[in-house]
């Protein structure tokens, strides 16, 4: 057996849960070639996890989905868990969420199912050091760029740690069930009544939601114009309305262009609300200027 100094620093995936992907802050800047931005859906949570372990904020970590994940850390290192709150165990011992933990070589880190929210982030000192594609290590589930969703036995190399940092910082309260939106760019494609009703309307988060879009079920957003919209560029947080009238909020893996009118765009600060909205939960829209 090799000694610990010969074992490469890595994350070994023991159980990826429902869906665990590698995410950093994505690959903006390539939309003109049809390349989605990808990146952590709850970006402030990933940045916080990275700060807690002394990484650059944009370093690559893990994004789990609802059910958590189990990994082994091959070398002595430190890690932090943020985003959706969950139980965290190291070698069977409960440790705190939202704090930095030092671990021995070979430690098993168990990230439990989310108590609230959807996506939990795990940052490990040094960050995940897979080859980057177009400047990012993020998995893009629409185009397939970047590392595939993780499977049992995957080994993710870690970069050199920057500096030791142990401690914690104030972690944000879980986002509430309110989503602020700004009308436009195609609000004029909808009836005045539909636009007025949008402010305060409550929708249920559909189980069909994923990293591409948050699908909402509730009051129909009625169109005032019937013609087809020529395909146009789409932004993160665009609230697109297909013919069903049931809105879809475009999340990080969204297509770069789309052919349905965008009634509004989510306020950037509220994107984590979308990232953490559980299927079956309610979201109330608030129109802001």
């Amino acid at each position, binding site marked *: 057996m090799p000694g610990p100094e010969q074992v490469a620093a890595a994350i070994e995936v023991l159980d990826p849960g429902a869906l665990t992907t590698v995410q950093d802050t994505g690959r903006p*800047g390539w939309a003109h*070639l*049809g390349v989605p931005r990808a990146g952590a859906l709850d970006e402030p949570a990933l940045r916080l996890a990275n700060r807690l372990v002394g990484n650059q904020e944009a370093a690559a970590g893990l994004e789990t989905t609802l059910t958590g994940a189990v990994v082994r850390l091959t070398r002595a290192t430190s890690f932090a868990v943020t985003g959706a709150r969950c139980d965290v165990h190291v070698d069977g011992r409960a440790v705190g969420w939202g704090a930095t933990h030092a671990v021995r070589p070979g430690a098993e880190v168990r990230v439990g199912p989310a108590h609230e929210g959807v996506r939990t982030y795990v940052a490990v000192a040094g960050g995940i050091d897979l080859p980057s594609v177009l400047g990012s290590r993020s998995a893009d589930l629409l185009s397939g760029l970047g590392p595939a969703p993780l499977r049992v036995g995957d080994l993710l190399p870690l970069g050199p740690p920057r500096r030791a940092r142990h401690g914690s910082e104030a972690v944000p309260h879980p986002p509430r069930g309110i989503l602020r939106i*700004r009308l436009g760019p195609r609000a004029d494609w909808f009836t005045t009544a539909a636009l007025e009703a949008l402010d305060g309307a409550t929708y249920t988060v559909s189980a069909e939601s994923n990293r591409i879009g948050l699908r909402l079920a509730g009051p129909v957003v009625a169109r005032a114009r019937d013609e087809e919209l020529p395909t146009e560029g789409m932004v993160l947080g665009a609230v697109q309305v297909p013919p069903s009238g049931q809105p879809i909020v475009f999340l990080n893996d969204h297509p770069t262009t789309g052919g349905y009118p965008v009634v509004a765009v989510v306020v950037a600060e509220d994107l984590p609300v979308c990232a953490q909205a559980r299927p079956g939960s309610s979201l109330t829209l608030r129109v802001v200027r």
Partner: protein
Amino acid sequence: MQVRRVGERALLVECADLGEVTATYAVLRDRQAELAVTDLVPAARTVLLDGVVDVESVAALLEGLPPQAGDLDPGPRRMVEIPVTYDGPDLAEVARQWSVEEAEVVRIHTTTEFVVAFCGFAPGFAYCTGLPDALAVRRRAEPRSRVPAGSVALAGEFASVYPSASPGGWQLIGSTAIPVWRPEAEPPALLEPGTTVRFRDAGT
């Protein structure tokens, strides 16, 4: 130019037609660094500016610009030539839609100067314009579940090359061995917006 607000950090410039989109994109692309814009995304009738640092200033600047006429000389363009083997399963269907022989489909495809108007659908998938409206091609009634990478295709007023294998409803007239999408290359897409494209019969 008419400009629409898109949330806090983006603007949408409206254009009269694809020619104006291509001209507007060329002008904005030249000034992208100065405008401090992360993404410029041309599409069918619009150019999206996303990741705009100073939305108010850029909006004011754009609103003060005249529409960019499509017939203006956009300056030197990247030019690529793509050798095609015209063996596509839908070559006969396109000939039928155009009421010509298959050889005439090849002649039209190889003598038209195309320009990449925009990308979308998949990384590196280019929408190339140049066909006259009268030669718009209807899509297949049943999309294929898998179209091979390198398939040369037509749909509507557009020509394209599938950059990777994917489902698709375009009519396939041939194939090329030239990769149009290589994420590790610079630029990663052979057919960037604004590129002039000529298809050549690889069999001649």
